């Protein structure tokens, strides 16, 4: 059964309460009945329109994501930065520079967005984890932000990085192909093979649980649920940094 929100539960209980009252203590007087109806209507309206039904308690937050910045300062601690955010501090700065200008990080609201480096580090931290460690609650606790922010930050960074897609996933130019082919020829010692400069492979990307929609279709031969990914690689890392 689907989980009910607190608001839905409150409405259900109130309707049940109304029903039982009408059954066991029916009002004899029409005036009383009207007043009672008006009261019920107001009550339901109040439940539906109140934004924070349960009040807003303060949630203590103490993130430790800022440790990454202190790791980045010391060259000997760079490995710690890498295990935290999955890339080196230099690449982090480059990536930051690439996505900083994206319009998704602009807002017209009077409340500014969090700094882009914080949003990016939350997204990278989340992408480098799986299982419990990747749950929104855990990331929120570690970053010292709310659960909703974790979702928002990740989504914004993903949209910004998506805009770089064509720049980094592209077909090869003729010169680049030539370098690849020369490598194949040398490695295989078979000149006829030099045209096979690509290779394809498929791998399932596992999901953490069975999907609710068409769950069985995701089941694969390694007895888990996942999405099929087909990848085409180059053999030889010959790409010059053209950008």
């Amino acid at each position, binding site marked *: 059964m689907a989980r009910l929100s607190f608001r839905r539960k409150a409405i259900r209980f109130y309707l049940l309460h109304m029903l039982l009252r009408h059954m066991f203590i029916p009002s004899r007087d029409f005036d009383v009945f009207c007043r009672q109806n008006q009261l019920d209507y107001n009550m339901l309206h109040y439940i539906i329109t109140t934004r924070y039904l349960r009040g807003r308690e303060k949630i203590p937050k103490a993130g430790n994501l800022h440790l990454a910045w202190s790791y980045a300062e010391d060259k000997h601690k760079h490995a710690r930065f890498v295990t935290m955010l999955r890339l080196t501090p230099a690449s982090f700065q480059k*990536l930051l520079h690439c996505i900083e200008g994206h319009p998704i990080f602009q807002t017209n609201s009077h409340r500014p967005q969090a700094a882009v480096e914080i949003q990016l580090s939350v997204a990278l931290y989340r992408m480098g984890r799986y299982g419990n460690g*990747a749950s929104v609650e855990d990331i929120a606790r570690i970053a010292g932000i709310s659960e909703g922010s974790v979702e928002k930050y990740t989504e914004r960074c993903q949209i910004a990085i998506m805009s770089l897609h064509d720049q980094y996933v592209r*077909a090869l130019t003729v010169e680049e192909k030539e370098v690849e082919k020369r490598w194949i020829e040398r490695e295989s010692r078979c000149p006829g093979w030099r045209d096979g400069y690509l290779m394809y492979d498929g791998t399932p990307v596992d999901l953490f649980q069975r999907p609710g929609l068409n769950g069985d279709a995701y089941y694969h031969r390694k007895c888990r*649920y996942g999405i099929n990914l087909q*990848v085409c690689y180059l053999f030889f890392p010959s790409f010059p940094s053209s950008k």
Partner: protein
Amino acid sequence: MPSNLRIVDYSHGMTASAHDSLAFTGTCASKYPEFLFDGNEFAWADSAYSCTVRMIPIHKRPAAHHPDNAHFDKCVSHLRVRSEHCIGSLKGRWQCLRGLRVHINSKHEHVTACRWISICIILHNMLVEWEGDKWSDFWRLKYHMEEEFDPAAGGPQVLPSVMINDGEARRKELVDELVRLAN
């Protein structure tokens, strides 16, 4: 041995119950082969794929017992081991691919899940370019884990097997070439 392999083309979105050869029909190489391949160019694949001129898989069981074919398969596998390295470093660095934490209850959420995969591939390519193979190896070991071609315009000479689009014949040619060199 460098393992920082760059990804040129990918396809996702098929559910994992789809066979590799079916999922391959969604890739650029299958839909728009002329975009990636020129002349006699082709790609290597494992035995799960079907054999075409642009896609040369290793042999399946009965044919694989032939000594020439076995030698061919061994040499191809020697090259193709790098693909496992690439997936190792992709999944080692971006561990969300080991258990993607996206609820799929609608078509829209399936697309969201696919976006996670795309992001990982973009970042993988980006970091291969910026950081080199040292870090890719680190992640892999840590978790074990175009030119329009016009034949009339004096381009490379196209083999007859490619012309008539016969994958089996193309593979046979490559086997023969290797055998000829070995002798």
